[in-house]
């Protein structure tokens, strides 16, 4: 049983991590807790569903296109909502609340268009293969999620660590003013970040939609809660942290079901979050940097 639970934990953790990657990226660069990330994630699912079922597109194509569409939506949200707030130097809670507004809008319009019911990808469009080894089972989609999550994380990490764009993004994260003075195209990179984050969110949506058959306008909300926990655990804005935080949360949840009680699964997850924050006030991997006196 333990081996199967470990697989369960790995796949669940990868789902969380995948969702959290874009979420943490936006926070890391724009300094905004983008609460519309869940809604964009949901839209990614629907978009791919629509392309597959109404336009008979292949799954890969649909995934690429819905990433693109989500990315563009991310840019539009950034342009219409976040950018004006940046320009106005609005208090830091304002963008967060504004993105709640965006999430409400997207969710309700989607409900109006797609209905409130759960949908799934049409039969036959999802790879049905699964791998079994004795008593252990893993579906192809789950495997894909794990692999894609790791690849995306590694790519992002390398971009942030090794490239000039990565450094520029980190500069912006700390001080847009300083970044301007260095000749960095701050607005351009804001858009790029919003695009990338939303595209990642869309990708997560497609994969989750594929593996759980529960595409609904409300699927973003619970994921958002978990995403928040993940990026806090991992340290806000930390890519590697999002990955580790996601896996950690996945393990914590699965193990609490396996060895404590499923009644207290969420309490265990959030209780852990609470305790970890008390011990490490900036998350497991957040760097503590005190402002110098």
């Amino acid at each position, binding site marked *: 049983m333990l081996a*199967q639970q470990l697989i*369960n934990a790995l796949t669940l953790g990868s789902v969380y991590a995948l969702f959290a990657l874009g979420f943490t990226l936006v926070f890391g660069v724009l300094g905004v807790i983008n609460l519309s990330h869940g809604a964009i994630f949901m839209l990614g699912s629907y978009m791919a569903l629509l392309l597959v079922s109404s336009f008979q597109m292949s799954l890969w194509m649909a995934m690429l296109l819905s990433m693109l569409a989500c990315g563009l939506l991310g840019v539009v949200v950034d342009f219409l909502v976040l950018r004006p707030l940046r320009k106005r130097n609005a208090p830091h809670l304002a963008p967060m609340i504004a993105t709640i507004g965006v999430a409400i809008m997207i969710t309700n319009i989607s409900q109006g268009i797609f209905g409130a019911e759960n949908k799934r990808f049409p039969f036959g469009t999802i790879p049905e293969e699964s791998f079994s080894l004795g008593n252990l089972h893993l579906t192809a989609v789950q495997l894909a999620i794990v692999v894609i999550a790791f690849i995306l994380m590694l790519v992002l990490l390398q971009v942030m660590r090794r490239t000039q764009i990565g450094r520029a993004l980190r500069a912006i994260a700390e001080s847009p003013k300083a970044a301007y003075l260095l000749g960095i195209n701050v607005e351009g990179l804001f858009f790029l970040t919003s695009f990338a984050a939303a595209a990642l969110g869309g990708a997560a949506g497609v994969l989750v939609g594929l593996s759980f*058959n529960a595409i609904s306008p409300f699927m973003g909300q619970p994921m958002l809660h978990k995403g928040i926990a993940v990026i806090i655990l991992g340290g806000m804005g930390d890519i590697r942290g999002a990955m580790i935080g996601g896996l950690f949360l996945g393990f914590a949840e699965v193990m609490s*079901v396996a060895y404590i009680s*499923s009644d207290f699964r969420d309490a265990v997850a959030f209780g852990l979050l609470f305790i970890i924050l008390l011990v490490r006030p900036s998350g497991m991997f957040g760097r503590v940097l005190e402002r110098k006196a």
Partner: protein
Amino acid sequence: ADIKIGVAEALTGPAAKYGVAIKNGFTLAADQINAKGGVNGNKIQLVAEDEQGKKEDAINVFKKLLFQEKVLMIFGPTLSNSAFAADPIANATKTVVFGTSNTADGITNMGPFTFRNSVMEADVLPVTTRAAVKQFNIKKVAILYGNDDAFTKSGYDVFKSALAEQKIPVTDTETYAKGDVDFKAQLTKIKASNPDAIVCSCLAEEAANIILQTRSLGMKQPFVGGNGFNSPKLFEIAKDAADNTLMGSPWSAENPSPANKSFMADYKAKFGSDPDQFAAQAYDAMHIVAEALKKVSLSGNLEKDRLALRDALPAVKIEGATGKFAFRRAAPKDGKEAGYDAQQDAIVNIAKGGKFVLLK
């Protein structure tokens, strides 16, 4: 004159999937009644308001319907929780409040003006369990239910006592929360406990997912479920992976009675999709009320008419889409006068080839 009837259902938000079906059921029935000239020549006019599945909004909507729209009675609200908040207001105003989807315990204890035709899980599930034990020769079961939802939790309570009564041991009890999509951890644990069947107090969409994930873990056990399973959604999502699932419900699409056949055909014609149990119960409820109204001569005095309706309702007996229906006086609690529950037989179904058929 028109008879104004309030409909307070969740038309937006997560509970809208029930609320909208319910509203459709009322609309279909009212249109049919009106097309035949109404009740004693009076047309039925539905006043629908959205209570969003939230209790504050349910209270608001009730007040608006009672005091502003001055409706004769109210159908709704969608969720039991909202009913606990809003039904006392109708009772205080001495107006009939008629739930078609509130299955929680204690709803009809809120006052003598509370009615429902939603069959309680307590009436349905023991029958289902008994049928399942016989059908699959079950010795022991595992249970899975949603523990943060009043409906699935009370379903669990009933299952638990029914199983205890029938002396079926439970190998493992697992829970999940609203919005969960990954049930593998719980299922893996259930698998290790090796039950003969899985008893599941869940809603259809969750159930479908649970079934799919159970199969992907290489488990073959049949499922036993309640009302919540009774939706085409189960098969839209799980298809024939759901085969051999046993479900007890007051309504079945397979019920060959003429009332049901015509309901299903009319519904499909009007709304373009197949009805579910919620639509069927709402449809019947409208006919129950119409039946009572036939016996009432409306005076135009709202207070009197509301009382007259309440006095006429308990005696109504019809044969509707959900089969034979009658009211049953609920047992009073804390010395408070109680309202009326549904007296109806449960139908036990089994899933075969992607749909529910009557269990012989």
